[in-house]
């Protein structure tokens, strides 16, 4: 997938963004009426749709935990989400991402409030253009909040990386495929706790620290947008 193209021209990226600029973001909650909670998050051309069901009874019984509930996450890319048709169903990548997203969301949820039960989170990527896992985490945390699941804080995520020696925020598809390094960060901004940190490629210590603070800063921006999205929905209710 690697292409020989210049990703940075006169300090601007291929889509005209500055290195530390996010793509246009839009968020909507309660888009699926039959789910307990749902949300749609768009990061530029990436569209993630999350729906949450539960807490609900968990069977088979051997999956039940006596003292706490469990979270099940399914990450799925729909066949038409990418340039070349993706064959449907789970594959190695989506199974891994499902687990990664579950680990990112679990610390935020009060699992002990619903022992023996399960919360199901379904994340579908309708259109993929880089940073799908962070879009998915953002959507899932909004959907969880709307479903009334008890949480410590909302989880916000953003991706950062390095192209041609420059540190950038919110990688799109081309940048993702051609980057020297990329990092996905999810955190609970209100508590300043990181729940997910993944990195691919090569970075030195200084760059890692700089990328982390960049990610932290942008997660806070996304956090504000998430809060705004929920408030928007209930505005008439106050």
């Amino acid at each position, binding site marked *: 997938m690697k292409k020989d193209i210049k990703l940075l021209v006169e300090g601007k990226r291929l889509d005209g963004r500055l290195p530390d600029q996010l793509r246009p973001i839009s968020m909507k909650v309660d888009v699926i009426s039959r789910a307990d*909670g749902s949300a749609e998050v768009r990061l530029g051309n990436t569209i993630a749709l999350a729906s949450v069901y539960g807490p609900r009874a968990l069977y088979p019984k051997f999956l039940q935990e006596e003292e706490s509930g469990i979270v099940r996450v399914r990450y799925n890319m729909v066949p038409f989400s990418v340039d070349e048709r993706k064959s449907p169903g789970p594959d190695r990548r989506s199974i891994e991402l499902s687990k990664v997203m579950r680990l990112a969301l679990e610390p935020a949820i009060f699992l002990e409030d619903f022992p*023996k039960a399960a919360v199901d989170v379904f994340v579908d990527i309708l259109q993929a253009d880089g940073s799908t896992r962070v879009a998915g985490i953002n959507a899932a945390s909004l959907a969880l909040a709307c479903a009334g699941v008890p949480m410590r804080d909302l989880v916000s995520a953003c991706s950062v990386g390095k192209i041609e020696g420059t540190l950038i925020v919110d990688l799109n598809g081309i940048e993702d495929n051609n980057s020297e390094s990329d990092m996905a960060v999810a955190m609970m901004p209100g508590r300043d706790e990181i729940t997910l940190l993944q990195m691919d490629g090569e970075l030195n210590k200084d760059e890692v620290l700089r990328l982390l603070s960049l990610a932290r800063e942008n997660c806070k921006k996304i956090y504000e947008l998430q809060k705004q999205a929920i408030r928007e929905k209930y505005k008439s209710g106050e």
Partner: protein
Amino acid sequence: MIVLPGEFLDERKGRKLGKGVYEENGKVFAKVLGLSKITDTEVSVIPLSGTYLPSAGDRVIGVISTVEIAGWFVDINSPYLAFLPLGEAVEEFVDTSRVDLSKYFDTGDVIFCRIVKVTKSKNVVVSMRDMASRKLYGGVLVKVTPHKVPRIIGKGGSMIQLIKQKTKCEIYVGQNGVIWVKGENKGKAIEAILMVERESHIPGLTERVDRMLSS
């Protein structure tokens, strides 16, 4: 005011922690999406959504799901099944080795009961040993969001009385969000209940329901 999970509410200052909040280092944060309620004695959040989690004292409507040797398991519209022991349901002496309990309640029967015990690992016990509890014959069940139940009942039962009067229906409301309706005009009554659920946040609800039922 609407608060989101993780939002700082207030310093605790020795006050009681209500539902929907958690405490950390003397600070109280919201746990769920809801409306905050901060008074001199208590800090709590009234949730706007979520499934029903049983708590002792609630009056609920349940459907018998299985008949056991010495009681029944009841579906109470929550992640947990509730158990109705024989002694909490039948006054007379029953010889469990000879009698089939389905002669009292069979699967699919609807009962109006009270939750008497909820353990830490969410074993729920319900009882029918009071005046209000009964088996409900016929009728239809409607499910609404459990947190909208106070709206459907209204201040001092005003809303539910209005619907009952206008439609001449028999209505029972469970705190688990299950409503039982019986009567000739039940279509109208259900319509009114769903209208309350949908529009509970818009002022002037009672008048609108009144108008809808009179038309």
